[in-house]
């Protein structure tokens, strides 16, 4: 916890400084007859973020905040493994949306979670992996008319859409 607290504060301090620099691309001061410039609002807010981070770091150095004295571990190896697998599977799935589309990626995601992380039976996993994309398709694409990303699989859907047209 102790180290995580410091790392997060430093990362966020750098991010705040970046935001201040980025905001300053627009005028941050007063423009006659126009009022405050476009960078004014985000610049000073980012400055407040930076100040908050510095105060967190200051308290960490003086050991006056609860987390700076905590001896608990931020994530034990078990928790870290779970976090990496779940967060990683989400990132991979969104990445796959670009290539094999939502209907290719969702079944893989569901199989990974239900079968490999959840330990449920193959028949049940198969049922979920098929039914979820089907309901998604019917509800979003047919009822709501929202086109979901299909990547390279786009052309395979033309005949299906033709069915509902």
């Amino acid at each position, binding site marked *: 916890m102790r180290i*995580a607290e410091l790392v997060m504060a430093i990362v966020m301090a750098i991010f705040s400084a970046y935001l201040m620099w980025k905001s300053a691309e627009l005028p941050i001061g007063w423009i006659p007859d126009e009022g405050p410039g*476009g960078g004014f*609002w985000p610049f000073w807010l980012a400055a407040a973020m930076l100040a908050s981070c510095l105060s*967190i770091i200051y308290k960490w150095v003086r050991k006056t905040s609860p987390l700076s004295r905590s001896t608990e571990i931020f994530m034990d190896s078990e928790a870290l493994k779970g976090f990496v697998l779940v967060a990683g599977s989400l*990132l991979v799935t969104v990445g796959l949306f670009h290539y094999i589309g939502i209907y290719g990626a969702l079944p893989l995601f569901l199989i990974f979670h239900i079968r490999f992380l959840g330990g449920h039976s193959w028949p049940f996993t198969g049922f979920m992996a098929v039914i979820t994309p089907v309901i998604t398709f019917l509800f979003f694409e047919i009822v709501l008319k*929202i086109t979901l990303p299909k990547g390279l699989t786009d052309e395979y859907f033309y005949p299906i859409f033709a069915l509902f047209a």
Partner: protein
Amino acid sequence: MEILGLLMDGFAIALQPLNLGLIIVGCALGLIIGAMPGLGSVNGVAILLPITFLVPPTGAIIFLAALYYGAMYGGAVSSIMLGIPGASTAVATTFDGRPLALQGHADKALIAAATASFVGGTISVVLFTFFAPPLAHVALVFGAPEEFALMLLAFATFVGLGGDDIAKTIFSICIGLVLSAVGLDIMSGEPRLIFFDIPGFFRGINFLVLAIGIYGIGEMLWTIEETRATGGAKISEATVTFKRTMAALREIMGAWKAGLMGSFLGYFVGILPAAGATPGALMAYGVAKQISKDPDKFGKGALEGVVAPESANNAASTGSMLPMLTLGIPGSPTTAILLGGMVIWGLEPGPLLFVEQKEFVWGLIASLYAANLAALLINIAFIPVFIWVLKMPFTILAPIIFVLCLIGGYAPTQSLHDVWLMVGFGIVGYLMRKLDYPLAPAVLAIVLGPLAEPALRQSLLINDGSFSIFFSRPYSAPIMIVALILLFLPLIKLVVNKVRVKKAAA
């Protein structure tokens, strides 16, 4: 009596077949979402908002408000049956609800929770009906300086009353506001904060991306870790028969004082943005214990200990809608998301709603009465169903919710850029939550940011750049002063404590 007439018109809208159906579906879904450990009203509203574009705005808000209500009822179910709060708002319900269940009185506790929720909900909606129109009327004269002062007050309550680390609270507010500034500068039209020149940022960051990221993805990551740590909890058995229900109801009547107190307390606490249903319920529990003739029974299965927090959390959810509808300032993270939804539906939140969108406002208010009744009936009739929901393993629930989040993040803008951002916010938000950064202020901020910035810039422009304008107008001055007191409250406390320590030492 004009109000009663408007309310009747509202009922005519709320009881239309489509809207009535939405109330019932919303309540049922809310009950299920509320009953699932880890998921509460805010998660349900954030994840399901994208699908409400199917119906007109009035129907959409009626559905989401019913879901909000249902979730408040449902939270009690897992508190009582599992001893794990179904949502943070139902934490106080575990204190006495769980002991009651362990003594074999799970049915009594469940019915007490449902009845108390009904009482709290109804009393608060009546209060709401009569408070909202006058408040909106006063607010009609508000200009940019008042609007900004109110928003500052909303954020100040998090700093002064939130109870989280001050620096982290301020950080959370500011990051939400900065994220809302991404895109095009509203006044000059120039591109602003386009990170790494990625074109997706020109459209700005939709509040839903942050809300679903934090309350969908982040919450799931959090709950997966929690359930691993606690392992499987044991579900209590509940026997529900007509005779037992009647006997329970008679006993619950005896706790009316706690219910009444909880309702009023919850309502007024709920109005404050930083407070809301969770602290409202905890406070009601504390007060109920103090006014009880038999305070020793608390924590061992006192019925008042279930009635007080459950009436308070429902009352608070209504209370939080008061500032949302009348002032355009959300009273809770859930109403912040509703407010963002209203903007998407093309409605401008604020007092003008009461003048220009009477149908929307009164339809919503009337639907709250109906939602209360629907939630009570559905809750009591389907207790076995909710217990079955609790038995659903998290390893099935979690991937389904992730799928809903991924699609929900994509649907409003149909851009994968937003889905990447959402997953990113979820992961970073989860890590920050582990380090005690409060995240609700950030969600409130990203919703209010696009309203707060022009209010501030216009105010400064009218007055040639001097902040004195906020202190020279009759309504903005007192609001601003209260906001500043709240902002500096932690500092004042610190100084007072230091002086005391010195005196004690001397």
